[in-house]
């Protein structure tokens, strides 16, 4: 076995020291009638050479979106990852370490968590951040649970239909057994109408959950929405796109109470949807209700500045069933990647990335709108994504035709929005070039129409 160190001689010596005759005897405490009397029915072992060949074949049976022209978004994005991110995150002392229970042996991780929290808090305009949660969907869900405990209103919440559908599904799964009433405000124009939100929020509403820019790529009128929520004593939770914060106002600046985000955009590969990291930041008054790990600054016995895991009395290993959540792990390695990414880009780099996404997406939007077969259903301003309607209603065949030519043109919306079954979502990151966008527009214009156009 490649990872075992004991030689047959070691094995014998150790068994003798224990006072047993065989390895099998070590399992005496497992009742005999429970023992598996056959081999596991799994494939035989592969050597590293064989496994490498096998995995290579599996990998080649996929089409790597990152190596093709990728306009797919919807919560996972083909952003550029600087080499520094891989180099640092690949360091074994980060990679193969564990939760920093022994602070003296983990100052690197603890300071990194602390600096991650600092960068996230500055980026979002909030006072505090935790050291990451599972992903954007669970972070949004945990934020809703926080708002219910902070407001003492456990009976009603309001979400926008423009919040990522899978985030809303996750929220529903978590809340279902708790019998919390959920109102979903429709977004027929691509974003919430303030009046609709006003009608939905009640005096017993714990929170309003909004994504900005939202799932359709549209900007919400956050400043008006936050006012409506606060007027009725509800908390305002924003799901942000961290890249957009290079350009857009910070949620803290428009008075959000909790900010969550999917951190994949910050230096993490798409990886078929995971592992990702859930970013969470909030107002200082809410910190004791926040789930997850938090690093805190203190001094050691010699008075030297140092870092520890803090406020652990919120956590499951101390409070058990009274904990703020059941979360035990975090996404430390991905948080590290996000932090290195932010440090590497700096203020100017993040601003440039955001502006390039915005400008290229805007250009793509105009080019696609000019294709006769297509139209834009929503007039709202957008950031790096936008919705396109195929007037022929042939989204699947249209996207399939382009995919066959190595262009992933967009995400069909039919799965989640029956009323948008003729629409798809196009994302444009800083990696896309004008040439690729022009080629996309040309391909969409020249693809086969089910019905020939009435005019040329």
């Amino acid at each position, binding site marked *: 076995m490649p990872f*075992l160190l004991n030689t047959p001689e070691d094995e014998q010596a150790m068994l003798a020291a224990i006072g047993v005759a065989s390895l099998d005897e070590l399992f005496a405490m497992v009742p005999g009638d429970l023992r598996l009397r056959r081999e596991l029915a799994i494939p035989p072992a592969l050597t590293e050479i064989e496994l490498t060949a096998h995995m290579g074949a599996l990998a080649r049976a996929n089409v790597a979106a990152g190596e093709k022209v990728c306009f797919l978004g919807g919560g996972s994005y083909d952003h550029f990852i600087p080499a520094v991110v891989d180099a640092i995150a690949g360091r074994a002392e980060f990679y193969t370490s564990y939760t920093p229970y022994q602070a003296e042996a983990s100052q690197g991780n603890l300071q990194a968590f602390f600096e991650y929290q600092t*960068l996230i808090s500055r980026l979002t305009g909030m006072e505090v951040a935790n050291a990451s949660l599972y992903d954007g969907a669970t972070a949004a869900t945990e934020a809703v649970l926080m708002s219910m405990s902070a407001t003492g209103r456990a009976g009603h919440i309001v979400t926008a239909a423009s919040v990522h559908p899978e985030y809303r599904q996750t929220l529903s799964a978590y809340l279902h057994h708790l019998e919390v009433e959920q109102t979903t405000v429709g977004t027929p124009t691509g974003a919430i109408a303030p009046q609709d939100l006003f009608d939905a929020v009640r005096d017993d509403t714990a929170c309003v959950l909004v994504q900005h820019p939202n799932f359709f790529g549209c900007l919400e009128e956050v400043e008006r929405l936050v006012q409506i929520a606060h007027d009725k004593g509800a908390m305002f939770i924003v799901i942000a796109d961290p890249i957009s914060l290079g350009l857009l106002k910070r949620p803290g600046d428009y008075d959000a109470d909790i900010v969550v985000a999917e951190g994949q955009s910050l230096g993490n590969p798409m990886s078929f949807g995971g592992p990702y990291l859930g970013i969470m930041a909030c107002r200082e008054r809410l910190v004791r209700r926040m789930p997850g790990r938090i690093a805190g600054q203190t001094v050691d016995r010699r008075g030297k500045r140092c870092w520890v895991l803090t406020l652990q009395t919120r956590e499951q290993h101390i409070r058990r069933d009274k904990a703020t959540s059941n979360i035990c792990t975090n996404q430390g390695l991905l948080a590290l990647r996000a932090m290195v990414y932010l*440090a590497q880009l700096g203020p100017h780099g993040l601003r440039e990335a955001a502006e390039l996404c915005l400008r290229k997406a805007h250009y793509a939007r105009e080019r696609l709108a000019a294709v006769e077969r297509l139209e834009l259903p929503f007039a709202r301003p957008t950031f790096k994504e936008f919705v396109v309607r195929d007037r022929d209603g042939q989204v699947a065949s249209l996207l399939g035709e382009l995919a066959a030519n190595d262009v992933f043109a967009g995400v069909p919306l039919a799965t989640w929005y029956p009323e948008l079954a003729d629409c798809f979502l196009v994302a444009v990151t800083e990696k896309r070039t004008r040439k690729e966008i022009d080629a996309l527009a040309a391909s969409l214009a020249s693809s086969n129409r089910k019905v020939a156009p009435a005019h040329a």
Partner: protein
Amino acid sequence: MRNTRATQPLFDLAKPGRRATRFPASDVPDVPLSKILPTTAVAATLPELPELAEPDVVRHFTNLSTLNMSVDTHFYPLGSCTMKHNPKRNERLASLPGMLDLHPYQPEETLQGMLALLYELQQMLAEIAGLPAVSLQPAAGAQGEFSSLLMAAAYFRERGERRTKVLAPDSAHGTNPASAAVAGFQAVTVKSTPQGFVDLEDLQAKLDEHTAVFMITNPNTLGMFEPNIKRIAEMVHGVGGLLYLDGANMNAILGICRPGDFGADMMHFNCHKTFSGPHGSGGPGAGPIAVTATLAPYLPAPLVARDGKGYRLDNDRPKSIGRVRSFFGNVGILVRAYCYIRSHGPDGLKRVSEHAVLNANYLLARVKHIFPVPQGDRCMHEFVASAAKLKADKNISAMDIAKRLLDYGFHAPTVYFPPIVREALMIEPTETESKETLDAFAETLFRITEEPADLLHEAPHTTPISRPDEVRAARQPIMVTPVTHESPAPTKKSES
């Protein structure tokens, strides 16, 4: 020799005008921002991030990394966390572009290799569990627990039963009662016997028609196999409840016995522990769940299915509890788990458990004279020693030992857990350590007990810091670098 300047906080290292990453100039027509975005939506200033050049970033984080212990550098006998070697092949193979650069919404025809892998992993985990149906979606063990409790709730709801209680032993991981509470159940603690097993009388007294689930870790957190597990399953099933297995300690029984065979209805795997995902300072993990055929309809979706045309994501599961995170799951960790299982095969997985148990028993045999193990002289993959006698005789605590071990180049065991053992030292060597390392560790433990108590109270002596003031950190929490005059605002963007 340490570069202490480089590890100063990032904002202290920053200097206006420094740049690392630059992006290509925009190649699309220049339109004023105000034509694209409402001015009210745009920030007035640049984001508040430090201005650094690439060498600053590299040196800062490289130096930070050297302040950590890790599995690649040190023996890390952190009980219950299973800090075993992370095979390097897994990292390389999980990083192939055809594994890493996949978008979750790309067409299924372009994902056949990935879906085949995940399908096969579902099947292999089902076989290892002895339970027929698997969902790979939960992002961590605790989320696997939580998802399973939601499934139990859905199952009982459909049967028209309203069951409110979830039971777990007092030796259980804190995630068990916490998951029960988050899922809306009342968490009820079941006592352990002095030997650390489930107290069957107490269990019987607490089992009733309101019991939804009994959660058990087996082998338990004391490293002992619950000898009454079959009886426990019968008792739980007798009141119509479900038995949940916390799979945190599966590395002790791979190919030896299977939770489905000893009566579990549901379980989770901790892929990062059992199948050696890199822990990355606390995550990511992955917590797939395996369940009986009866419970299969409730699994979180999607699952990977196979038909004549190939592999596809199956979202058409009307009784599913839904989804518990976005997209498919923590796929990168699942790929590593797949590589791990394929590297071992049936015989190899069994050898892993045998040697995890051999190493733990050998270390136990070496230390038990000094550190009594209340549960006796045999264990599975880990054991819990007690420093209570040392504390009484010499005023040396479990924490003192843990801290002093760091000076000798060993990571500390888990201390003060499980809470039912006084001055607990929970030691899990794992199978990827040698006899020589275990001998050196045991000898170091003895040596420490001979050292003056005063020396130990101030340990560690050689680490970058020593005995941080945790009370101060919690009472006056500082969770971000305060904004100071020394951290300059970013320089204005040039108007070029």
